[in-house]
């Protein structure tokens, strides 16, 4: 079992190394041998990456099936690294949670690798792209299967750096590399807290092994657990793009669309939620941390949904929707339904990957990211249209697609919050969840109508995307549609009549509102009715501007001051010391004027002085 899990982690890792070193050589080999098939299929790096992803998916499937037939956590330690105090165990741990999330990661990664072959067919740096996606997959699987907190942190950081490289994949455009740096810095800010949270938890419990830590949580002092969980929440907010560290995610859409689908929607951003779910007993022992998580989630959820309502870029709509949906999971964890949150993580992974890949098809066909350039794509792109319709339905939470079941589980749990968080916080979370359902329906309807209905607003050739792109989208539509029914097996995940009816009513109201505005004039953006607040929503409540004033400007000023000190104090000291030395040298050089008679005079005078001194003093 552990061997299989290690193989799942290792196969994309090996593919990353091999693909980076030998990918282009394989391309040339396939080209010269004249292997039959379409030209884009003779892409060496892609072949290596797809084969490895398929292998990882197979292994993850075997792991999941084995665990389903014979439940119970397994763990194994490959090696123990002694550090002098607490040893670091390089070990994996497989339980139901890890197995299903691992399977979800592998499936999305495989779909994205296949999709990228067509989407980035002309890309000159395909080998590095595919290698980083493979490395990312491996790191994410390491986070999922890690049995040790520090091993988990290794995967966590490798994911972050892969995300940085992939956002900046088209670094020729300055905006992309800036977005990459922003994502890196913001997530790193949270990661500092995460690392210290791990230290506090690990040192407090006397071990870094996750199951051992969770077993000893009950014996730890309350303050230790509270400090550790609050510090961990900083990393979770950074990675899962929750307020106040969410600003990097909308900008991260500068990366290629498949990357947005894999990293910034389905998997990496879910890692924060996954870690909270994994360490859930520790969080349950600190209700204050859960209350903080709940407030954070409520702000992110509603704020991001409102921001999504006014975005003009399809990918940014989806990015804000990702923040909002991740906040749903965080809210689920805050109100005590771990299974509901993980369920929503899985369904969200499926439908958000689907939505992003379908958005990629739309962008591929129309050549634009902006909603106002689309329109009337329903007839020409049937696969994309139907898949995206299912995806949006899941996002809104319409029955019978998956999102309905998972959202309902969270909303129902919020009604009877059992995690020990204060009552007012639970009420706020519950009300925010309901309001967000309506806003979600409105922005999803707006994006759906503006993309597929009405008439085309710019000149492009309406056609279906290449089969390598439309098929992964179509295949992802299947789990998006049916994944919800797997929740029927567990009693706490079954839909509840009251909350389901309430949220459906709200979703219907939101969706109908957007539809009614759109119907008045299908050529215009329904967001126009927002009036003066539209700009505020579109700029994400000016959080970026506030950060510019509060963080970026002082840091820049400090940097300028440091440069000034370097120039004016340190450099000047060094330079003027040279000048002073030269001046003294010049004084000493004056006697050396090339006239030997002067030298001899000096010699004689010196001798006379010495003789006099000897005569007088000796």
């Amino acid at each position, binding site marked *: 079992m552990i061997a299989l899990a290690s193989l799942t982690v290792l196969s994309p890792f090996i593919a990353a190394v091999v693909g980076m070193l030998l990918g282009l050589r394989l391309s040339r080999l396939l080209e010269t041998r004249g292997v039959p098939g379409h030209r884009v299929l003779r892409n060496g790096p892609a072949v290596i990456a797809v084969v490895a992803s398929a292998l990882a998916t197979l292994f993850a499937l075997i792991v999941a099936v084995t665990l389903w037939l014979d439940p119970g956590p397994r763990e194994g330690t490959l090696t123990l690294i002694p550090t002098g105090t607490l040893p670091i165990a390089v070990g994996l741990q497989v339980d139901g949670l890890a197995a299903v999330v691992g399977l979800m990661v592998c499936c999305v990664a495989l779909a994205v690798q296949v999709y990228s072959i067509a989407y980035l067919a002309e890309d000159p740096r395909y080998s590095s792209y595919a290698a980083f996606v493979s490395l990312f997959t491996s790191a994410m699987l390491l986070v999922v299967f890690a049995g040790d907190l520090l091993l988990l942190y290794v995967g966590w950081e490798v994911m972050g750096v892969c995300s940085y490289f992939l956002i900046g994949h088209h670094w020729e455009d300055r905006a992309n590399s800036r977005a990459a740096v922003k994502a890196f810095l913001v997530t790193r800010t949270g990661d500092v807290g995460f690392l210290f949270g791990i230290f506090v938890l690990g040192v407090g419990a006397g071990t870094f092994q996750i199951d051992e830590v969770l077993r000893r949580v009950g014996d730890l002092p309350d303050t230790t657990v509270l400090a550790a969980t609050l510090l961990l929440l900083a990393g979770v907010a950074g990675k899962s793009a929750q307020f106040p560290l969410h600003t990097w995610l909308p900008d991260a859409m500068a990366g290629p669309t498949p990357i947005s689908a894999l990293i910034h929607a389905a998997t990496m951003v879910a890692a924060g939620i996954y870690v909270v779910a994994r360490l859930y007993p520790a969080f349950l022992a600190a209700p204050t941390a859960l209350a903080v998580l709940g407030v954070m989630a409520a702000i992110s959820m509603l704020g991001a949904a409102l921001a999504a309502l006014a975005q003009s870029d399809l990918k940014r709509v989806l990015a804000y929707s990702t923040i909002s949906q991740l906040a749903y999971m965080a809210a689920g964890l805050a109100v005590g339904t771990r299974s509901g949150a993980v369920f929503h993580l899985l369904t969200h992974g499926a439908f958000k990957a689907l939505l992003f890949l379908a958005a990629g098809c739309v962008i591929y066909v129309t050549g634009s990211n902006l909603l106002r350039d689309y329109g009337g794509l329903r007839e020409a792109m049937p696969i994309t249209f139907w898949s995206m319709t299912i995806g949006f339905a899941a996002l809104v939470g319409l029955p019978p697609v998956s999102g309905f079941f998972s959202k309902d589980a969270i909303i129902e749990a919020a009604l009877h919050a059992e995690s020990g968080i204060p009552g007012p916080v639970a009420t706020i979370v519950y009300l925010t969840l309901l309001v967000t359902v309506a806003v979600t329906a409105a922005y999803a309807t707006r994006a759906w109508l503006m993309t597929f209905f009405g008439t085309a607003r710019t000149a492009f050739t309406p056609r279906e995307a290449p089969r390598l792109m439309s098929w992964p989208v179509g295949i992802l539509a299947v789990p998006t549609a049916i994944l919800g029914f797997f929740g029927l097996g567990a009693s706490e995940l079954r839909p509840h009549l009251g909350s389901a009816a309430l949220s459906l009513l709200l979703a219907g109201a939101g969706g109908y509102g957007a539809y009614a505005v759109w119907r008045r004039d299908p050529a215009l953006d329904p967001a126009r009715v927002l009036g003066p607040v539209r700009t505020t929503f579109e700029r994400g409540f000016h959080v970026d501007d506030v950060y510019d004033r509060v963080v970026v400007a002082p840091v820049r000023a400090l940097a300028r001051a440091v440069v000034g000190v370097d120039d004016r104090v340190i450099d000047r000291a060094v330079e003027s010391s040279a000048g002073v030395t030269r001046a003294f040298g010049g004084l000493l*050089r004056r006697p*050396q*004027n*090339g*006239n*030997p*008679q002067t030298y*001899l*005079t000096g010699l*004689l005078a010196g001798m006379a002085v010495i003789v006099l001194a000897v005569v007088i003093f000796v």
Partner: protein
Amino acid sequence: MHILYPLVVAALLFSIGVYGVLARRNAILVLMSVELMLNSVNLNLVTFDVWLRDRLHGGQVLTLFTIVIAAAEIGLGLAIVLLVFRNRESIDVDRLRALAESDAEPPADSVVERQGPAGQGDQVAVSSRRAPQ
């Protein structure tokens, strides 16, 4: 004869020599002043040889050596002065200041010419062209 007379004469001679070396501008006069100093030392040697009644007459023997060496030295010195005069058309000691420190960088072209294989090759080529003349 009292020893004081030759000693005073020797001291006077030496002082004149020192003055000449330090103050004269003509290189030949400087050389002559050096000779004066040497000869004052010779006078001292002879004086003390007699005054101490040295049976081996070491002082006088040493004086002979000094005279020989002075002759050789003045030969070399005059030859140098002659060469300096040929090069500079002047034997004014005050103006021979090539050894002074100066702020000016050494002329760059002379350095460049000696560096690198190309420069050497040029020089070789030049010399081989000149050889038959």
